[in-house]
């Protein structure tokens, strides 16, 4: 078994044309596209503007939500400040759903204990839980 091939090559998933068309329309410059199918949803992970993104579609091609991996230096300043009050930021994902924008942070305290920190679009804490 060629392990390298197994790592690099993506699994083949049959994706409806409506879903592919919808994805191409919203993320026209997407690269390195990898589809998966789970519980009647299609999920795609890809690069767009050099950032990792994950988008979820229903069978008809309706975009349900998408997530963007935000480099720490690109987090809006006021959001970053509020999240930093909860611990050192180790990861930030911008989470767009139909009607809201939220941020999903991983922060850690001085003892290196890591937490999931969920905030609203202004950086206000919604939930914090130990990972």
């Amino acid at each position, binding site marked *: 078994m*060629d*392990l*390298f*091939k*197994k*790592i*690099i*090559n*993506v699994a083949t998933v049959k994706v409806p044309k409506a879903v592919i068309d919808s994805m191409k329309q919203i993320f026209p410059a997407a*690269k*390195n596209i*990898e589809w998966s199918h789970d519980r009647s949803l299609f999920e795609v*992970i890809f*690069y767009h503007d*050099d950032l*990792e993104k*994950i988008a979820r579609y229903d069978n008809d091609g309706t975009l349900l939500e998408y*997530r963007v*991996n935000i*480099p*720490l*230096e690109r987090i809006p300043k006021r959001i970053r400040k509020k999240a930093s009050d909860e611990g050192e*930021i*180790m*990861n930030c*994902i911008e*989470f767009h759903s139909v009607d809201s924008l939220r941020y*999903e942070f*991983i922060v850690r305290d001085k003892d*290196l204990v*890591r937490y*999931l920190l969920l905030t609203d679009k202004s950086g206000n804490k919604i939930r914090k839980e130990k*990972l």
Partner: protein
Amino acid sequence: MAENGLEISDEEIVRRIRKGGETELYSVLYKRYYPKVLDKCYSLTHSRELAEELTGDILSKTYEKLESFKGNATFSSWLYSVTYNHCIDWLREKKKLHYPEWNSSNELPEIIDEAYDEEEAISYDKLMTLLDRLHTEEKALIMMRYFDEMPLNKIAEALRVTESAAKMRLKRAKARLLFLYNKNEN
């Protein structure tokens, strides 16, 4: 019954230790998994001495945590999850392993948008050499997913990240691996 335990499945051994108190059977699991755990620890630390120390810790910790083994996964995948978690936590604490800092100073110069379709397989040694050029957390992600075939939620738990973060870091690790391979070959 095979008195030396060699013919008993992992899960049966765990069941008998938990229900029947046959604690001596743990030595069977210990012998069965010591080389595999050691190999993973060595892959992540590159120190034989440290890998041996961590392996001892992991197998003791696993014994102490046997009560929390739910049995909805195999014993081996549970043990490997504890192994990666323990090694990464150790490296984060003692070696100041810091993925965000490393990642921002090692930005990917190019995202390659193509599949790998070479006829000839890459040797295991060459693959390990390439993996050693990734950050240890990226290497661990690839090992968990493709060597040990762990599900993403378990990988996320082991690394103490969210599932979305695990998916995205894995994506980056694969993109970096392909970039390094191409750079090496051209």
